[in-house]
């Protein structure tokens, strides 16, 4: 982290960048927030640890409009989003100085709470430099421990890898955190009966409160105005009055990002109701991989997206239900 701060200071001092986009220490052990730093002295608050899960790519849409370059800290998975945004002309590559930061898996405070740990006062082991694979947590109700891996975000268990897809320089090392196949959950659902599938999604989606956190955090949902906020399709909604509406919202959202979603996992991370929203996006990714050839959005900035591409021999829609 110190290396990052030092580099940020250098870049600010020599005028390479006008500001730094990183994380500012929070007032609890686990709540750093994305923040801009414009002066070297502000960097005392800079922090980069296991709780810095937020994908800063989307902030670059606004930062691209500002005067001068912005140094932005991107984890390997975040760089896919940034590439995708470049491809869609939503960010300006020339306005970004990308520091690819190392990552040893990001932590999910909800997962720690799920283990019954509450009244958290202090967490040790979340720094990038900490080698320990156990978090030591001091709480009002006594000291607790939690395995680092057990507190990791779902997306880190299916990590896309340690490589940064786009960067100006790299700082820090990354750990291999992948211990599951990202399509396992989808494949499991696919084998269920229609009744079971319906029950599963009905239950999960019934929790949706339409806060739009998934949409607003999503780097692919970068529309200036979402179709669900506009009158263009007569689809503007602010609440799910009927259970159909949450399905409509999530299916259409997933469809609109199909072939563009990098599977960054932000939607699932931010959902206040813990809905596994990645299951929608990954279904499309899995279908695309199987039907049209493997495609990773954001791995490059030139390839044709699956939904703006075709081959004569593409599968017919009737393949649905015939597979598996």
């Amino acid at each position, binding site marked *: 982290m110190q290396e990052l701060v030092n580099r940020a200071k250098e870049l600010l001092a020599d005028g390479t960048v006008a500001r730094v986009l990183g994380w500012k220490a929070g007032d609890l052990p686990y709540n750093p927030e994305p923040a801009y730093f414009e002066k070297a002295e502000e960097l005392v608050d800079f922090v980069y640890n296991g709780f810095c899960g937020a994908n800063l790519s989307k902030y670059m849409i606004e930062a691209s409009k500002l005067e001068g370059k912005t140094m932005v800290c991107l984890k390997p998975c975040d760089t896919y989003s940034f590439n995708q945004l470049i491809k869609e002309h*939503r960010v300006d590559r020339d306005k970004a100085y990308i520091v690819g930061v190392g990552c040893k898996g990001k932590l999910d405070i909800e997962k720690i709470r799920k283990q019954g740990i509450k009244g958290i006062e202090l967490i040790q082991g979340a720094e990038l430099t900490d080698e320990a694979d156990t978090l030591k947590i001091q709480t009002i109700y006594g000291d607790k421990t939690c395995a680092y891996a057990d507190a990791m975000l779902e997306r880190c268990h299916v990590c896309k890898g340690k490589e940064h897809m786009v960067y100006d320089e790299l700082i820090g090392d990354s750990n291999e955190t992948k211990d599951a196949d990202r399509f396992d959950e989808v494949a499991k659902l696919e084998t269920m009966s229609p009744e079971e599938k319906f029950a599963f999604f009905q239950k999960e989606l019934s929790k949706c409160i339409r806060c739009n956190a998934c949409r607003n955090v999503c780097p692919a949902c*970068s529309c*200036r105005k979402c179709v669900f906020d506009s009158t263009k*399709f007569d689809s503007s909604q602010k609440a799910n009055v009927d259970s159909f509406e949450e399905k409509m919202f999530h299916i259409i959202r997933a469809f609109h990002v199909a072939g563009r979603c990098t599977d960054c996992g932000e939607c699932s991370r931010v959902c206040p109701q813990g809905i596994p929203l990645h299951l929608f996006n990954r279904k499309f990714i899995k279908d695309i991989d199987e039907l049209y050839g493997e495609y990773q959005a954001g791995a490059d900035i030139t390839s044709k997206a699956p939904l703006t591409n075709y081959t004569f021999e593409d599968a017919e829609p009737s393949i649905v239900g015939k597979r598996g």
Partner: protein
Amino acid sequence: MQRIGVFVCHCGSNIAATVDVSKVVEMAHMEPGVVHAEDYQYMCSEAGQAKIAAAIQEKKLTGMVVCSCSPRMHEATFRKAAERAGLNPYMVEIANIREHCSWIHKDMEEATKKAVILMRAAIAKVNLNAPLQPGESRVTKRALVIGGGIAGIQTAIDIADAGYEVDIVEKTPSIGGRMSQLDKTFPTLDCSACILTPKMVEASAHEKINIYTYSEVEKVSGFVGDFTVDIRKKARSVDMDKCTGCGVCQEKCPSKKAPSEFNRGLNTRSAIYTPFAQAIPNVPVIDREACIKFKTGKCGVCSKVCQAGAIDYEQKDEIVTEKYGAIVVATGFDTINLEKYDEYAYSQSKDVITSLELERVMNAAGPTHGHLERLSDGKAPKEIVFIQCVGSRCSDDRGKPYCSKICCMYTAKHAMLIRDKYPDVNVTVFYIDVRTPGKNFDEFYRRAVEQYGVNYIKGQVGKVIPQPDGKLLVQGSDLLDNKQILKEADMVVLATAIEPNPDVRRIATMLTASIDTNNFLTEAHAKLRPVESPTAGIFLSGVCQGPKDIPETVAQAGAAAVKAIGLLAKDKLLTNPCTAQSDILLCNGCSTCENVCPYGAITYEDKEVNDHGIRETRRIAVVNSALCQGCGACTVACPSGAMDLQGFSNRQIIAEVDAICR
């Protein structure tokens, strides 16, 4: 709120026998916005149209629905009727209650119910219709032909004969193209030059044709009817107006080591050169790479010997900007690079040549002055092997997956000519299939076998092994006799696959014309619009669209010309108003729509927008309504719904869905 009139047609008994027309009228009155509803025996008749006109005027209708036969039948009729009565024709919607209802249902109650629903959907849609005006764009009465081969020449002549100005842009110093390199043509064995040269002369002498040789298209902007093109005239170093074409400069030029492009590099030419004797224009160019004057600053022989003082070492590239209404692409082909076909020893032996090289060898103006001889030692060959499908029909990355189409015929031609002129030479052709569809084509091939004794063997050659004594050992297989064949040959001729001129990629990009995976230009419709590109105003002539022989090329050249003439004959173009439009407040500028547009109708501009008080410059999609054909692919690709299709808008279709499901 619209004021809608509903007109229900009986179509004699065609509709009325199954649909309770009066009930439909009654139900129409219940719908919001409907101020008038009536039925009539034949709405499409003059009397029916008069009723419509009267209602439009009396009830001040702003929209109307005709419940009748298919819109494919009478939509145009009713639109015209509406327009005559002062209603915008795009405020008319048809509810198809005949083909989609009365003719397929027997039960009257059921059919009537359905007719009412179809009518409601049409009313719901027309409620959201907006008057549309077809756009107009002017047509510049001048055509550009890119490529000066037989395809380009023929297209240019045909367009010019119709009275329109045509410019030909040719990359090399002379027009003529591949055909000028051929010795004889199948299946009549005419001398190629003898039939091509008059065409070249005709083109150059035509008062409506202007030829830019040694020139390339640099930039294209605009759209159908109104293209603006920058043409780069490369510095020729010879003044076109002064040169008399006497040829002394070429004789005296001390630099004679440059490989002759015209003779496929089989011999050399001078640094100042015309590619061939019949070149048009008959004005040489200086190859600055080969010229001693340009390389060292010393020499200047050509300038000294030129009586006309035409040599101009200071000449610079010049950009000419012209406007065109139509563009024809006729960029032709080349043979593929054989580097990856090591087994045929093309790069190891001078006596392994391509068929196009053989054309030059057999030609009196060629490197051997028309004598059939081995290029390695000048000896007369006794045994010649032809290998077919070299690089054609290949699914690996060495060759091309398609059939090059012309090889079977020209090989038969070569074999026949050799046997005719040199009866003591044995000719063997290794083939996979002999493909001869075409008038007199199979007869031609049979003549080669029956009359000229050419030995055709079914089976591909695996390897050509140059021998120390200069012979070539050909290892092939005879699939019919199930034998492996080892044959000593003096010369091997490869029927090399053809591919589109590599420049076509650059040109297609400039024209936003699409090309397929093999770099052939895509036609607007494989069957019904084979000489048009999907991009309006761009036409295709010759091999740039797909492999073809000379007669086919000439036929297609004429067809492309007719299409171009049809366009140029118009004073202005009416554009279909049902085009896509992007909402500047919603557009993200993400380029997704551009990627699915088959017509290159979408571009992006940085526009100043005022989004409810926020002023900023944004990248916005702009649809060129002259190019847009209204398919709607972009509207679905657009995630924010910024892109919408006039006449079939999102809200209109949704209104129809709602009305049907109500």
